[in-house]
């Protein structure tokens, strides 16, 4: 494929898909180890009331207020999950289940009560981004990457998700040590002065922001898959968290790129006529990678409960 075709049509979706995958996979490593991996699923539901409220307040369908509404709802949900978990002394999965079903149901009611006949409030608009549509029509080829005028025509999702990814990387890098210690041994972490409650909250809020930014760009299916599959697959490859992080980023990238390419060209190679959903294919590839590592990964056998020797 020539640059004239690749750059306008495929470069930006590939980059956006990859950035979104990495932004979700990084916090996913900790969420999986903390048994909070379902938070991605929870957030994909709780953003609904946030989007509806944003629409009610602004009366318009525009990206920024809706993203802020979604992010606000995600943060409210995260705080509620944490509060229910701590005050109710119940496991995180149950707390998430209670919060996300309630908030999603509330969003549905709110949507129903709202007069949306004049404006078509398309929730899918915000929830299920379409990767294939994020093309860069102003580009004429590789040289456009240096062309200020062409760069101005980049899809706005690209800088947003890139910025989010950079933020997630910074958070992970800066708080690496306390995150690792408090994920492994929360009690010990507190005795050395790590504020584990605040840190745990910061982690899920970071994940929530990554999720909302990724929903906007690529849709919720990738988000839910990327929080879990690359980190879980990476765990099968190594017994060190440092190495696991590297593997998870690699798996996320492989899923995004090969998923996009396969979705676009796979059906043609098989003699079909139409491309399939890139988001669906990316999530499927990440699931296949997980299955592959579960069968072949060098560190898939666990010792289970420590033997009493």
């Amino acid at each position, binding site marked *: 494929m020539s640059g004239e075709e690749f750059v306008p049509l495929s470069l930006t979706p590939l980059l956006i898909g990859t950035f979104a995958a990495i932004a979700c996979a990084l916090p996913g490593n900790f969420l999986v180890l903390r048994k909070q991996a379902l938070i991605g699923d929870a957030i994909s539901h709780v953003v609904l009331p946030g989007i509806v409220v944003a629409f009610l307040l602004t009366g318009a369908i525009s990206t920024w207020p809706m993203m802020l509404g979604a992010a606000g709802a995600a943060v409210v949900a995260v705080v509620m999950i944490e509060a229910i978990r701590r005050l109710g*002394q119940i496991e995180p999965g149950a707390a998430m289940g209670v919060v996300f079903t309630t908030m999603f149901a509330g969003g549905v009611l709110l949507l129903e009560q709202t007069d949306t006949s004049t404006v078509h409030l398309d929730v899918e608009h915000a929830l299920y981004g379409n990767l294939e549509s994020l093309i860069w029509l102003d580009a004429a080829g590789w040289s456009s990457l240096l062309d200020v005028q062409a760069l101005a025509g980049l899809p706005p999702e690209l800088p947003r998700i890139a910025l989010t990814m950079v933020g997630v990387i910074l958070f992970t890098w*800066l708080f690496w040590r306390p995150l690792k210690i408090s994920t492994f*041994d929360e*009690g010990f972490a507190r005795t050395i*002065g790590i504020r584990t409650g605040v840190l745990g909250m910061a982690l899920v809020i970071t994940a929530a922001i990554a999720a909302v930014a990724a929903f906007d760009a690529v849709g919720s299916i990738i988000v839910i898959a990327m929080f879990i599959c690359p980190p879980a697959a990476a765990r099968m490859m190594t*017994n*060190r968290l440092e190495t696991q992080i590297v593997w998870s980023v690699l798996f996320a990238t492989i899923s995004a790129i090969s998923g996009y390419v396969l979705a676009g060209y796979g059906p043609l190679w098989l003699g079909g006529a139409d491309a399939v959903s890139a988001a669906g294919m990316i999530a499927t590839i990440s699931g296949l990678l997980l299955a592959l590592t579960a069968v072949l990964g060098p560190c898939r056998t666990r010792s*289970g409960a*420590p033997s009493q020797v």
Partner: protein
Amino acid sequence: MLELATVQGVSIEGQDIDRCPLAIRGLTVSYGQKPAVFSVDMTVQPGAMTAIIGPNGAGKSTLLKAALGIVSPLSGQVTVFGQPLEDQRARIAYVPQRASVDWDFPTRVIDVVLMGLSRQLGLLGRVRARHMARAMDCLNRVGMREFADRQIGQLSGGQQQRVFLARALAQDADLYLLDEPFAGVDAATEKAIIAVLKSLKEAGKTVVVVHHDLATVVDYFDHVFLINTRKVAEGSVEQAFTAETLQAAYGGRLATAQIDQILRALG
């Protein structure tokens, strides 16, 4: 309501509080309706080895966790070397119950020990050769040097407990608090751990251990603290570890024959 038998142990009130490694006053902790620890005072003797003993569910671990700020008490005051806990964190090392963590966590033995140096390392400090040497030295003291590169899930229970102790040693604290370090470990590990704890005591450190094996109290410890939600007794083993205090702490749960046996060991 709880049946509470209070036997006045030897009080160490009025002692110079600045020298006291850990002083607890009026500590009450509750997880629900019932208090787990009720209005407990504790004064830990410097340079001694103290056992916290009491029946299951008596609040032993909770007392330790509240003293360390891991659980929030309803009321009470904790001072460490005469200062608020938060100012003295660097002088405390804590060994949690082995079962409280997931040993499947992707990390190696040496990485766990290095966690004990995280206050020195700070957020972004690099692990340098001297940190590595210190961690290896601590592993050596618990006889685990050759396991440094093992994934922690591949260790036996006793080996895991020794790794936890090595992490506490790396902290180079003045006050060591251990929660059931002898639970479910092999005899060799128990011997190794007690040797390390005794060497800490000889170096002038203070050691407090939540302990469940009454038969070894006399051999291992100088002081005891008996608890059954409320404080039952506190003092030297000779003064506070008696048939009367044991009966008060354990009630019917400890047969008279068992107590006799323990006390015979006392001589």
